[in-house]
């Protein structure tokens, strides 16, 4: 099959996914669903998940491939959330405290993660996946045994340890989403969260135009060139790992405040996969990604995830959206894995 050049540039999988999204909206219009609510949900989901997708960019640009070990950063962010909640810090300060603690943890943890990935070169994706899995399951034990005593966090009666989901109602539930929020044609825009996402995108974009960012990308692009230019790609890879872990930590804090709950235990286990699918759908490859890929991919995939359930339930009984998610998400990752050489 030969596609016109412009279409090829856009990529067949992205085309199919865009068409699928268009079809979902077509059905939504045909069945006279409330489009305003649908679009509002899409925007909220983009703002909620965007930073977790953005977190993958430094890893790809730094030559670590798809960061299946995103839960490493997510765990750091979750610890930040739990500690901040334990001290009962409300409002924006609470979010800031959670981020501060999360980032503070993510820097050394990310450096250690980068060190490990340097030692396991060539198997970064596999090591990242299982390191994430092991960490999430190991942390489950920690959540059970952790010395937190704030009654809003631990199980009221019976069980031990922290609750599986911690409600943020009245603490900093949707505090970013609501900041400067406004309505357009019945659609509420979560300004604060959206600005946080876009602002971070801008910062990451700027970062890759600084000395360190340029160095990281150059080392990924050609490690032997980098060596000749006096750059140690072991160091740049650690820098990339720190960055992806830090953004993962920030990402989960923003996610939690938007979602209204902090989810512990096995919740972060599979969080890397939809994020990876997003950036790939946006046109990234295992070795190259741009901010544009992050934005486009997040919008396309999160919109599908948001609309699939309500729209398909108009037509079919049962929740086909989860199945669709599995197929699109993993199909996209498979496509990316089998396409790159090297």
């Amino acid at each position, binding site marked *: 099959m030969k596609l016109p050049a412009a279409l090829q540039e856009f990529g067949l999988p992205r085309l199919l996914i865009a068409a699928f999204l268009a079809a979902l909206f077509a059905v939504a219009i045909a069945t006279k669903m409330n489009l305003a609510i649908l679009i509002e949900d899409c925007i909220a989901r983009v703002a909620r998940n965007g930073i977790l997708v953005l977190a993958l960019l430094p890893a790809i640009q730094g030559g670590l491939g798809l960061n299946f070990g995103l839960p490493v950063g997510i765990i750091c962010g979750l610890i930040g959330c739990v500690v901040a909640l334990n001290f009962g810090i409300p409002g924006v300060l609470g979010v800031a405290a959670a981020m501060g603690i999360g980032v503070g943890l993510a820097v050394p943890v990310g450096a250690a993660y980068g060190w490990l990935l340097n030692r396991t070169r*060539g*198997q970064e994706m596999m090591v990242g996946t299982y390191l994430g899995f*092991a960490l999430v399951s190991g942390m489950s034990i920690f959540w059970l045994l952790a010395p937190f005593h704030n009654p809003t966090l631990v199980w009221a009666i019976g069980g031990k340890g922290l609750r599986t989901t911690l409600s943020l109602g009245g603490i900093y539930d949707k505090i970013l989403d609501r900041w400067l929020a406004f309505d357009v044609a019945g659609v509420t825009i979560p300004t604060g969260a959206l600005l946080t996402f876009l602002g971070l995108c801008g910062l990451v974009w700027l970062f890759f135009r600084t000395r360190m960012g340029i160095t990281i990308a150059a080392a990924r692009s050609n490690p032997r060139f980098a060596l000749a230019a006096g750059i140690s790609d072991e160091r740049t890879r650690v820098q990339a790992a720190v960055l992806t872990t830090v953004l993962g930590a920030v990402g989960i804090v923003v996610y939690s405040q938007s979602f209204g709950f902090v989810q512990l235990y096995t919740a972060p286990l599979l969080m890397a996969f939809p994020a990876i699918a997003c950036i790939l759908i946006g046109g990234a490859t295992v070795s190259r990604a741009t901010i544009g890929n992050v934005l486009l991919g997040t919008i396309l995939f999160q919109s599908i995830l948001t609309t699939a359930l309500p729209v398909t339930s108009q037509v079919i009984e049962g929740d086909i959206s989860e199945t*669709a998610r599995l197929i699109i998400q993993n199909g996209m990752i498979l496509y990316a*894995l089998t396409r790159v050489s090297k």
Partner: protein
Amino acid sequence: MKAGLDLKARLGHWSVPILFAVLCLSGILVARLTPSFLLGEMLVRVSRNSLLVLALVIPILAGLGLNFGIVIGAMAGQAAAIFIVHLRLAGIVGFGAAWLIATPLAIVLGVATGMLFNKAKGREMVTGLIAGFFSNGLYQLVFLFAIGSLIPFKDPDMLLPQGYGLRNTIDLTGIQYAVDDLIRFQIPVEGRMLRVPIATYLVIAGFCVFTVMFLRTRLGQQLRAMGQDDHVAAIAGIPVERNRVIATVMSTVFASWGQLLFLQNIGTLNTYNSHEQVGMFAIAALLVSGATVSRATVGQALLGTFLFHTLFVVSPLAGKALAGDAQIGEYFRVFVAYAVITVALVLHAWQAKTRRRR
């Protein structure tokens, strides 16, 4: 110097299983488990899990690494089980029919997986893992939505009330113990009668013998050569790509049979969950024995199954005895499974890197 290195290597070889044995033993002591309980549990668990672990050996030797794609074989086995329940086949006939249906299905899926691996050379493991997730999506699409709607299927006992999609559990009592009880045998232990699934163990023994014999054939030698260095193998005229597909097909087919053997013991099918963890547990079990991403033996598969499932039984009970909470033990065994795989992957990549450096 050489001998010293050998000894060190050998100790390193056994350190993982020894560590595990110690872990299991302390768990047994803490939880005060009786030998009869343990023996009974292990007899059953080893019989129903070994084949799934054995399915991993051949791809490892052929240089494909840990085949995370055996989940796909397990799905083929389940599809076959679903079909014979619909046909109302039972007993060993039912099991045989399931076997006959599962095999060609697994071959087709194995060929597809193998071709995928050929397109993703060097990242077979992560590709296998994702391929498993992807197939799970397709499996759900077929059995949760298409069956009864797009695929003509009328069986109110099996379908959800809405008229399409299978129920979450499917009763397999028809073929339960079909193989296990083919040869009835019970031994009395501490006043309880333990049923020993002799026939199942014979099947497993048959598989071990087959695998060992297979490795001494021409094709087996070719696969072993590929596992060492597929470039050299290709230069020697070995059709590497074709053989990689063959190894994947064998693994997938064995996994489908392994899953059937598992299901006939359990007696119910968790339509949408039974297969999900198959790959992870089988791989963790194999690695517990000290096998690596590039080396595994039949003996290690059996030893690993035994050790891993001992831990599996012991850990919640020990957790309850220690902390008064079985939950901790359950998290612990999942953690151990993931951690074992992580460590094996790290060691593999680490060693590969040092080798390259030299």
